[in-house]
């Protein structure tokens, strides 16, 4: 009898694997359903199982998503759930965004303020070093794992869940997470280094990109929408590192391109009421190339223009290009000007989904979305959707003049850091910023 039960259990599992969420569904409906069975060499399920096994054995610490992170269950490529935490988040910023598209992170912060989401943004974060690594190869697996775990530790020790801003960091961290989980030799080399810094190997149970968070929140965010986007043709560039690295660990949604393309940022654009337009090279990269954007710009320029901007405009009649990663915004935005000399005057506005959403929700296009860092005609696009750009601009120019002359102090999205925080990462820092309400923190 027990063998029969075993067999039944095996079949249950087999069927479950084929259509994971279909325990009580109508079979006819199941016949119609498209089920992806993407498998990376090890399979994400396997990695997750190993992760919890290592936690049980005390090999690693797992940073769990807690109820106060307001987790929302989304669906990944295979139909398996991916849990997106939506509150109490640790901002893992992007170096390229902060350096060259500062309106990108500030739009994220601004929306979180608007939706009353608790977050921490700290000086105790390094970049993921993925840009340097993919460009030059000047790193190694242990160093990459060390950088990842160190950042994760800083989030873990104050019990805020890491939210990754950069697409490359996101994809890269997914790979590093798998590597740490699957390779003991990496953990063994990593552990003494972490101990040197009074840390241990901590791995969050999900790696989450902000665009996934934004899509998850978009239906709520859109309630605060200020401008009508229904006449906007928006083309989307889905960043490669978001969905091509560990493909089964990115959210998909049957509502977005029938579940055949990543849910973010296309779904966000859709939920904000813009018309999503399609073009044949949607899956192609933007031309950033990590090294190419600095030293092979002929390639980056040509690729961005001919493979992305021109198809988006000619095939999709796009008014705006929305994307969700650092390099893509930079490449698509900056590469268009040089085309003018050759007669390719497209000037298609390029925005990150965060900026796009924040502006639609009424964020100041200059002080918050910081569109003056963009080379393309974002202002023209904003005028089209009814944003009083000129009023904002006038005010902003005055603001800049006042800052320059020392007449005013900069405004802040959250309380500026204390001096000590620029030197040491003191564990009780959360209390200072959040008072006692941030007190369900770890004292590990």
């Amino acid at each position, binding site marked *: 009898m027990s063998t029969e039960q075993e067999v039944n259990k095996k079949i249950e599992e087999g069927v479950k694997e084929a259509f994971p969420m279909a325990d009580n569904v109508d079979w006819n409906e199941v016949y119609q359903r498209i089920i992806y069975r993407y498998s990376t060499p090890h399979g994400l399920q396997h990695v997750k199982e190993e992760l919890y096994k290592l936690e049980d054995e005390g090999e690693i610490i797992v940073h769990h998503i807690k109820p106060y992170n307001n987790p929302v269950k989304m669906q990944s490529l295979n139909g398996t759930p991916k849990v997106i935490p939506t509150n109490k988040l640790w901002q893992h*910023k992007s*170096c*390229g965004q*902060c*350096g*060259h598209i500062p309106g990108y*992170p500030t739009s994220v912060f601004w929306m979180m303020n608007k939706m009353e989401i608790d977050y921490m*943004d700290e000086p105790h*974060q*390094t*970049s993921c070093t993925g840009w*340097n690594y993919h*460009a*030059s*190869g*000047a790193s*190694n*697996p242990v*160093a990459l794992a*060390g950088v990842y775990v*160190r950042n994760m530790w800083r989030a873990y020790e104050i019990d805020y869940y890491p939210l990754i801003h950069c697409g490359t960091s996101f994809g890269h961290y997914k790979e590093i997470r798998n590597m740490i989980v699957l390779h003991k030799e*990496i953990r063994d080399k990593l552990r003494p*280094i972490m101990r*040197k*810094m009074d840390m241990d190997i901590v791995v969050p149970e999900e790696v989450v990109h902000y665009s996934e968070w934004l899509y998850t929140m978009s239906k709520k965010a859109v309630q605060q929408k200020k401008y009508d986007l229904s006449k906007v043709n928006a083309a989307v560039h889905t960043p*490669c*590192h978001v*969905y*091509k*690295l560990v493909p089964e660990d990115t959210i998909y949604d049957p509502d977005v391109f029938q579940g055949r393309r990543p849910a973010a940022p296309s779904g966000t654009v859709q939920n904000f009421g813009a018309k999503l337009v399609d073009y044949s090279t949607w*899956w*192609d990269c933007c*031309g*950033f190339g990590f*090294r190419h954007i600095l030293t092979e*710009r002929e*390639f980056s320029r*040509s*690729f961005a223009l001919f*493979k992305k901007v021109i198809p988006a405009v000619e095939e999709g009649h796009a008014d705006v290009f929305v994307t969700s990663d650092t390099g893509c915004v930079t490449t698509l935005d*900056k*590469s268009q*000007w*040089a085309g*003018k000399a050759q007669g390719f005057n497209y000037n298609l506005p390029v925005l990150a989904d965060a900026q796009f959403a924040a502006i639609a929700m009424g964020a100041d296009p200059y*002080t918050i979305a*910081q569109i*003056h860092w*963009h*080379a393309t005609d974002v202002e023209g696009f904003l005028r089209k959707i009814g944003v009083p750009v000129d009023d904002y601009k006038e005010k902003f120019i005055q603001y*800049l003049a006042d*800052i320059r002359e020392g007449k005013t102090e*900069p405004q*802040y999205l*959250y309380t500026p850091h204390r001096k*000590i925080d*620029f*030197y*040491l*990462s003191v564990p009780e820092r959360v209390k200072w910023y959040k008072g006692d309400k941030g007190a369900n923190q770890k004292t590990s």
Partner: protein
Amino acid sequence: MFMGKKMATRSVLELPDDPRFMDMAYEEQGAVSEEERNLSSLKPEDRETAVKFWQAVKSDFRFDEYLRGCLNCGVCTSGCPAAKFYDFGPREMIQYMMRDEADKIWEFVNKKVWACVQCYTCSMRCPFNNEIAGLIMVLREYSVQFALESAKEILAPYRRVLYTVMTMGNQVTPDMIQPEAFPDWGPQAVEESKNMDVYRKSIPVDLMQRTDIGWHPSLQTAVEMMTIMFESGVMDSIKKVDPDLYDMIEDIYQDRKSQLEEIKEKWEKHELNENELPDSWLDL
């Protein structure tokens, strides 16, 4: 007028330099194994390094996981952005690897490997689940570790990025966008660099108000980054490629570490007077 002297003597068919193309080469070489004969196409001074390099790559813990097999279908190359512009294709690399062609790998790693844009389209689409872009990274890592000429060349313009990432854990600086360096980015880049100071000050986040760093990390964070880079052996490979850069970072590391230790000690003993610290540790 086309019949110059040289042209007149050149035959339509030229004999290839690579003896592997010629069946007749067996006359001279005898029937030697492919692996041995492959090497003869390399310059004698390169042979030893080429073999060592290939052995090192093959013994990396990721190699067997990333390279699984090849159906020769070409999906990787047809989706490849770099293959649309350069004489480059992922299938080429996979085939060299599958066939143990140390000489071809050597040629590939000294040039073509740098064409890849790391978009991972090939990895996502490969029906055999090869982690192709990851294999490219393994080759690139080892070319830095072996301090190959191509790696040195590639890293030269990257010095500043490397310096920033190693010492501050942040890869870009806003002020790196200088109009002279980016003339193709047009007038906006000029405007941006002209107003850099005030543009940065107007950003509503205190961490992002400097022009020389994307966000201002803490001193402890910077020291920890350098600790990871030294302890994990990354700096050892930098030493081989760019010894000056190594020395510079080493000095900074020692300075910052002792500054941090001093501040930490004082803080723990409640002796630290915060007012005496400069606003930024970068000014220490």
